């Protein structure tokens, strides 16, 4: 799985989330911020991470999720890191 694969998976998740700015989603990149750039409410972040677990069939540690900020790149890092541990 490449970082682009993960980004594509995140886009699939975000397409189903009503609160996400779907126009802004067309320009998503690793540098995007879920909250500042895509309009995601901060309380939805946890739900996106939970959906990423399902999407990539992984299980994240609570401590790793605590450490995340709202940058897309950090979520990709988490997925890649957890994948490597499998």
């Amino acid at each position: 799985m490449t970082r682009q694969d993960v980004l594509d998976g995140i886009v699939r998740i975000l397409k189903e989330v009503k609160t996400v700015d779907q126009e802004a989603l067309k320009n998503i990149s690793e540098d995007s911020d879920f909250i500042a750039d895509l309009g995601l409410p901060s309380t939805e972040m946890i739900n996106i991470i939970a959906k990423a677990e399902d999407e990539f069939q992984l299980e994240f540690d609570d401590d790793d999720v605590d450490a995340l900020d709202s940058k897309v790149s950090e979520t990709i890092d988490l997925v890649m890191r957890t994948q490597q541990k499998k």
Partner: protein
Amino acid sequence: MTELEKKGWVNTAPGEILVHGPSKIYIDRYWWFEPEEGLISSYKVQPKDVADHFDVFRGVDIIESAGQTGVSACAIRESVKQEKSIDELKKHFRIAFLGMGEARFHGFVRVHETLVSICSINRYKFRQMHVSCKVYKVPADKDVAASLSELKQNKIVDIKLPAEYELVAELSDIIGRAVPINKIYTN
């Protein structure tokens, strides 16, 4: 979790779980707790709570009481998960009331009436809990202990309330989260 452990949580003083100062706590006690199901609390409205407000408890305070119940459920659940005491948990986390979906009010609550918040856990993941609460009021001359102290049900939907319990609010998607202290105090 054993029945004894559940009873232990139910008998914990709200002030030990919540971080609010005593004048801002809108829970007198917990009555029922199931880690996968939810939490029930009550609060008898005091004269100080309705000052300058026509002897009526404000809607926002009904939300706060239910929110504190949801946050308490989150704290207890996280404490159980980490196998730590609440005091130990508080050293590392603030259990915060982060938000709420919709509030639908059906009535109001006067001084000396008792609020009963019945909060069902909808989701709990990564230290964040989502609950939905139904808030009832009980007349001032009725003792809620008579109907809440011996609940044996394991499922919240199986709990039947006496006729004098009147639904006053339905609150959806109350969100509580155990936030690491180092994520709050970043300056």
